[in-house]
């Protein structure tokens, strides 16, 4: 008897200890031969500001706008944020800002409005800009969108490991459970849907007060959030999610005093790279640029 060639088991990634640090360092079942391909470095800008979140928990919109501007100028090596947005968005684009409304930890209106302002600065009429989450399939702006901006917080998730930028597009399919198989391994396939394919111009991972640990299958407990005051921004959603995942593992290690892999493994991020070729998950191939508040940056 012999093992079938297309079978992927735990033994494969135990043997593949030399594979991307991602899988081995954080418990992801990433297969060595699936990540071996050469990729161009994907840039991710992590910008933090200690004043992004006030002591009462309120988000400072002015600070957020400044952070977003810093992020895009660093991302695209330009001085003027509006120039960056003009390179991303054309005045005749119809722009959907895909948000996330989970009431405990939403994208926040401050982030949505900061993005919207810059999209308008790029020349897009307000009537051609939509912000939505669960209603995207019914939203006329999203149905005819020519450009998407993807923005959401990262949080732990009982079935996918983390709620990620990749996962944020699940509402673009009328049947989200189609992507639940094997701890949401196929989430990268979402990005091949005609309604989104090739339209995403920017990904913004909100890391203001991330939920790094979940109690029970679905509960939110503020105890397991912390003020990080960050945004991770990039053109490559896989790379940005990979950075977020590293941050979560670092925070869990700090908080619990030892390795505490995310369960289930957030392998949809690695598979988005190796199987769906959506971007880069390997940290060694990600150009991480860190700006702003350094204390407690963790990664």
């Amino acid at each position, binding site marked *: 008897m012999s093992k079938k060639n297309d079978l992927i088991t735990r033994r494969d990634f135990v043997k593949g200890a030399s594979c991307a640090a991602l899988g081995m360092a954080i418990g992801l079942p990433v297969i060595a031969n699936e990540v071996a391909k050469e990729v161009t470095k994907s840039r991710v800008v992590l910008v933090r500001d200690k004043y992004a979140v006030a002591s009462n928990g309120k988000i400072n919109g002015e600070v957020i706008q400044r952070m977003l501007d810093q992020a895009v100028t660093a991302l695209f090596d330009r001085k003027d944020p509006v120039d960056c947005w003009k390179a991303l968005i054309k005045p005749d684009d119809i722009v959907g800002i895909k948000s996330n409304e989970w009431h405990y930890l939403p994208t926040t209106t401050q982030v949505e409005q900061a993005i919207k302002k810059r999209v308008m600065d790029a020349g897009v009429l307000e009537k051609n800009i939509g912000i939505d989450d669960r209603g995207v399939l019914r939203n006329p702006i999203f149905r005819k969108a020519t450009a998407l901006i993807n923005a959401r917080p990262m949080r732990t998730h009982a079935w996918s490991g983390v709620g990620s930028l990749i996962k944020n597009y*699940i509402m673009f399919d009328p049947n989200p459970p189609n992507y639940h198989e094997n701890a949401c391994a196929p989430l990268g396939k979402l990005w091949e849907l005609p309604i989104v394919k090739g339209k995403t111009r920017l990904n913004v991972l909100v890391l203001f007060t991330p939920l790094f640990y979940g109690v029970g299958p679905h509960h939110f407990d503020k105890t397991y959030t912390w003020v990080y005051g960050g945004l991770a921004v990039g053109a490559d959603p896989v790379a940005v999610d990979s950075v977020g995942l590293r941050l979560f593992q670092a925070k869990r290690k700090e908080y619990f005093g030892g390795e505490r892999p995310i369960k289930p493994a957030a392998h949809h991020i690695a598979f988005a790279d190796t199987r769906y070729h959506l971007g880069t998950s390997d940290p060694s191939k990600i150009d991480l640029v860190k700006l702003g508040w350094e204390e407690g940056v963790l990664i």
Partner: protein
Amino acid sequence: MATEAARAVPNEILDWKVTDTVETYDRESIFDYINGAGEVYRSYAFRDVTVWRFSKPDAPDITVEIFDMGSPDDAYGVFSHTRESEESGIGGGYEQRGSVLCFWQNRYYVCLAAYESTDDVRQVVTMLARIIAQKLPQSGGIPNLIGLLPQEGMVEHTQRFFHIHASLNYHYYLAEQNILRLSDSTNAVLAVYEPGTTWLLCVEYPSAQEAEEAHGSFVENYLPEAAETGVAMVDVDKWVSASKLGRYVVITFDAVSRARSTKLADAMKISLIDANLGTGNDQ
């Protein structure tokens, strides 16, 4: 909504009052309530969940959820899915972490949660949980297979009860494919043992033939070098064994030695035999 669940929830406790909005979600609509995490419940025989919200001016709301899991085994199973500690005194067992308290009782899995964990909230959550537990049906023991796990060397609170492949991968990532042929019709238990971190998995199949086929699939796809002996070292000081006994497949992962691997598997099989299971006469 099950009447007995509705009867178990009071209209008020201390100064928290239940709001008018009581919602019920079934196997299909649960995604409207908790999106993808609903799959955790659907991996068991979950029927529905009813949700109550208690509010008090200038205090965090408290949410009460009563999940009808279809059977006591599955109520225990979903409780065991994420529990890291367990205390007795509420239901069949409970865990309180931060502002969330969950317990299981009979076929119900009950969670009480608040946005913030203040002393007041923790006190009222505990009190409310006790009231609900008193009113729900009392009976409902742990799954038979959980009771048969060898006790010697078991790490506390690591026992899990589940049915499907995705649940196994949650606790111990085995393979992307379902090489053990787990399904809604299989019952599986998993626990961690010392020394080291040895995992013991025991799966009950509907028939001895299905167990044999699953065992064959596992050996073929995961442990081909152990086709004859049933045990092999897969990495440095990590031994895996696989054996079958009637309707049961017993596997140990990551044991520190061959002897430890087979000894733990043997202890499980002795438990099955002592319980008159696994002999082929229990079908």
